[in-house]
């Protein structure tokens, strides 16, 4: 299963959902496939899931999707016990696990190439609906269900190591511009000011 194929399936399903992404090729690929204003691609390892949790708690009526990777999640496993206890029903976590630190260009294996089972870690942290998918058909089934139900879902998506993102045009929007676009979209759709202060 290729991450790009998963994104091609997921992107048309995005309407009012908020999508928080981390780093690696997935930021480039998702930003290329989906131009939705509800994207918040924080471009940092180990930070996207926490940001998604904060969004999901404050906006319980909005579906929030966290796009994580094995490397990023391994860097921030402390999120999982908190997530298990908070149990926000509007949050879907998709962990694209290619079992390598592909950004290093040397295919250094991550812990998930060995004995580590991220869905098992999540379950032991109290996240009941944690599962692993290994083919596109299973990905489609699980994500469709997760997006349509009000329950915390944690889906580890075993994907091939690919380099397709290196052929995709990288975003030119800088992070402050990206943030403002996201916040103005939220202000418009939530009908409330977010950035406070007077000019």
């Amino acid at each position, binding site marked *: 299963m290729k991450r790009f194929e998963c994104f091609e399936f997921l992107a048309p399903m995005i309407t009012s959902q908020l999508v928080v992404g981390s780093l690696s090729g997935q930021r480039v690929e998702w930003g290329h496939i989906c131009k939705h204003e509800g994207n918040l691609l924080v471009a940092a390892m180990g930070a996207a899931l926490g*940001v998604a949790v904060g969004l999901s708690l404050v906006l319980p009526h909005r579906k929030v999707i966290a796009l994580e990777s094995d490397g990023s999640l391994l860097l921030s496993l*402390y999120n999982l016990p908190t997530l298990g206890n908070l149990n926000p029903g509007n949050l879907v976590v998709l962990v694209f696990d290619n079992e390598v630190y592909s950004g290093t260009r040397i295919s250094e294996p991550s812990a998930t190439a060995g004995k580590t089972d991220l869905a098992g870690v999540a379950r032991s942290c109290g996240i009941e609906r944690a599962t692993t998918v290994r083919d596109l058909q299973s990905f489609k089934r699980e994500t469709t269900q997760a997006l349509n139900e009000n329950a915390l879902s944690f889906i580890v998506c075993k994907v091939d190591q690919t380099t397709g993102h290196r052929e995709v045009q990288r975003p030119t929007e800088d992070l402050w511009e990206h943030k403002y676009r996201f916040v103005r979209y939220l202000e418009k759709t939530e009908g409330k000011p977010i950035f406070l202060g007077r000019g």
Partner: protein
Amino acid sequence: MEPELAKRLVDGLKEAGISFVSYLPETRLSQIVPLLRADSSFMVVSVANESEAVSISAGASLAGRPAAVYFEGSGVYVSSYNLLVLGKRLGVPMLLIVAYYGSIRDKRNSFLYAFPGIHLIPILESLQIQYEVFENGECLEDKMKGAVKMMHAIKQPVALLFTGEFTI
């Protein structure tokens, strides 16, 4: 900290407009936690790691709840990466409520705390995070309002460091 000072701190946060607090509990300011939890105007989230607190409060802030993070001074070290990539690089306003352990006016200071404590302000300055040190309750509410106004103005974290009378 005297109960009255803890109450003023929490009331001051509320008056300044803070409505979301993530935290990792510590010793010196811990009296504020039950007060925060007892006030329904605050959404309060306990975490396992200070980095996570910064990330969660960043999300809350971007969702429209003016957010704070409460932790011990060591939390600034632990979360410095998240403060840098979310607070500074992405530019997310949040208030850091920091127990300034290991400072000269820390009434619980010892060899355990002094060495980390003396590095706290240099770390904040290296991150170019604005900060204010509080030794007592003088002008507490006004300074907290000013700090929150500052964080909204620059869309970055601003830190409040509590020592002296807050560390009893």
